[in-house]
């Protein structure tokens, strides 16, 4: 009752007598709001800039071409580098991409296009949303049990493949959710138009839905892979090496990784390793920027062609 009358009053208000044409105040408020949202957007950039300046200053003494091509060194820390960790992280990135993207796309297409609204499918959906919030160390322990121990004959134990499989589990939920959102945004008429012309479900998906959903899905994949490459906690559990005398050269080799290398350096007592860690952070940021730019270029190409 009370609510009803309130709504009525408000409705009356907009009709005329209570409307105040206070233009200067309204434009003022408009400007204030635009400043507020601009500031909100700037926070992220400022934090990133401060971080970049800070680590670049700390790491400048170590940053050189030699840093990229040398092994880390305990005996001569000033000549040490990040080469095997960089190679390991690139392997992780590539394998994780190859594993998680087809699986994520597949699962999203199933859930969005094929799944009936049954109890099992609803259970799967709820699970996927929840999995996106599970702490990464839990995925590490899962990876240790499944990939490192149970599947050791296939994965070679604590290999870079086991690491990539674990990271794939970690980012699959994000990829699935993003791809589903992209598929859901496609108007129903597109599907019906395809069926009306006699196309099968698979043909409609392949020729229309996937190309249209790909730009949106790629955004999710970029974010997910960025997260994967920055993870240290799950890798520490699934057999990442803190030092190796060789660089990874196959999926069943042992591996080092950038975040764990930085973590190792930061925990050392010597100042020189703190500088190495800062230089390592710069390398991670550059790798992330390059990977993201490549993905964004790809996305833009899809967007234009579809």
């Amino acid at each position, binding site marked *: 009752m009370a609510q009803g009358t309130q709504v009525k009053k408000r409705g009356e208000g907009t009709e005329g007598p209570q409307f105040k044409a206070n233009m200067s105040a309204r434009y003022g408020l408009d400007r204030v709001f635009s400043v507020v949202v601009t500031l909100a957007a700037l926070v992220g950039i400022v934090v990133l800039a401060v971080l970049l300046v800070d680590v670049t200053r700390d790491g400048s003494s170590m940053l050189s071409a030699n840093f990229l*091509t040398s*092994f*880390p*060194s*305990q*005996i001569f820390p000033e000549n040490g580098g990040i*080469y095997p960790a960089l*190679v390991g992280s*690139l*392997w992780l990135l*590539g394998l994780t*991409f*190859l594993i998680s993207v087809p699986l994520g796309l597949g699962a999203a297409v199933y859930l969005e296009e094929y799944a009936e609204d049954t109890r099992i499918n609803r259970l799967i959906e709820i699970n996927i949303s929840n999995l996106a919030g599970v702490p990464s160390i839990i995925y590490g322990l899962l990876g240790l049990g499944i990939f490192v121990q149970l599947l050791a004959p296939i994965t070679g*134990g*604590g290999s870079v493949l086991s690491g990539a499989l674990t990271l794939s589990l970690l980012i699959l939920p994000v990829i699935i959710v993003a791809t589903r959102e992209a598929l859901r945004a496609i108007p129903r008429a597109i599907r019906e138009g395809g069926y009306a012309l006699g196309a099968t479900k698979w043909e409609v998906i*392949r*020729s229309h839905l*996937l*190309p249209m959903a*790909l730009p949106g899905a790629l955004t999710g994949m970029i974010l997910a892979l960025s997260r994967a490459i920055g993870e240290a906690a799950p890798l*520490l*559990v699934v*057999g*990442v*090496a*803190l*030092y*190796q*005398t*060789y*660089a*990874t*050269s196959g999926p069943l080799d*042992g591996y080092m990784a950038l975040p764990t290398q930085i973590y*190792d350096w*930061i*925990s*050392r*007592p*010597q*100042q020189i390793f*703190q500088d190495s860690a800062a230089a390592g952070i710069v390398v991670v940021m550059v790798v992330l920027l390059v990977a993201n730019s*490549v993905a964004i270029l*790809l996305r833009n*190409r*899809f967007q234009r*062609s*579809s």
Partner: protein
Amino acid sequence: MSRILRARLVVGVALVLALSLVVAACGGGGGGGGSQGGGGSEPVSGEIAIEGSSTVQPITQAAAELFREQNPKARISVGGAGTSDGFEAFCQGDTQISDASRPIDVAEEVPVCEENGVEFIEIPVAFDGISVVVNEQNDFASDVTSEQLKTLWEPAAEGEITRWSQVNPQWPDEEISLYGPGTESGTYEFFNETIVGNEEEVNRTDYEASEDDNVLVQGVAGDQNALGYFGFSYYENNLGKLKALSLDGVKPSAETIRSGEYGLSRPIFIYVSTKALKNNDAVKPFVDFYLSEQNLDRLVEAAKYVTLPGSLADESRAQYQDRTTGTVFTEAGEPKGGDLEAALKQAQ
């Protein structure tokens, strides 16, 4: 239809290119290393997996690093998952060498090794000390006894012992803030066993905890009322910011830690599988190299730990040369007979 196929191709080709670049780069790196090799004995190849304590890892890393210069084809990986995880993998035969910041557990870990037929040689390689430190500005505390530390850190102290005067009546009636490693740390475990006593599994929990000793250094350096404990090397590298307390009248230094006079000093080890020594061509040359007289002290110093006294280092080498298997420690984690050197001698 073909558009998406083409798109897939682009992605696929990009990835393959990226990976092959990496592989090529690796090949290049390996080749470059190879030309530098060939010093002294025949270079060996083969794989060695080493896992275990992150405390010992810097020493083993230094060994692997120098070994690599002469043996670029040997593939050695060194992990730092922790002593317990290291022994778990070692006793299952997954690793050939295990780094340990405490002796192997006679009750729980040795039986697993035995079950899997893994025999091991226990080799002390260095000493590690724990320093108890206060802020540089602190002008009243310079010495602390084990008893006082126990009063301060035991579980019963939680919420009760919060002022300096409660620990030592001569200290001022001011708030004390505590800093120490988290419960996962070997330093925590050792401090707890030595100071609080074996039967207690935990110490008080109302203190600033971090697994990263550098964070503790920053904490104590920035807090006038702070008292904390962490690895001796972290104190040595921050002399200007911190003040170390003497423990029961003994100042922490390389000498007192080496001699065992300083109470919070412990040996750290590598464990080598005898099966791996026989079956894996790389393990024997690597351990020979690690323990050799010209290398061991250099490695330990590079990793900022305290070198073994000469006589104990000789016993360590003898333990390895004679392939003496098993541990010389009791269930309580004490060397048999109380003295490490004597216990090693006894075992051979």
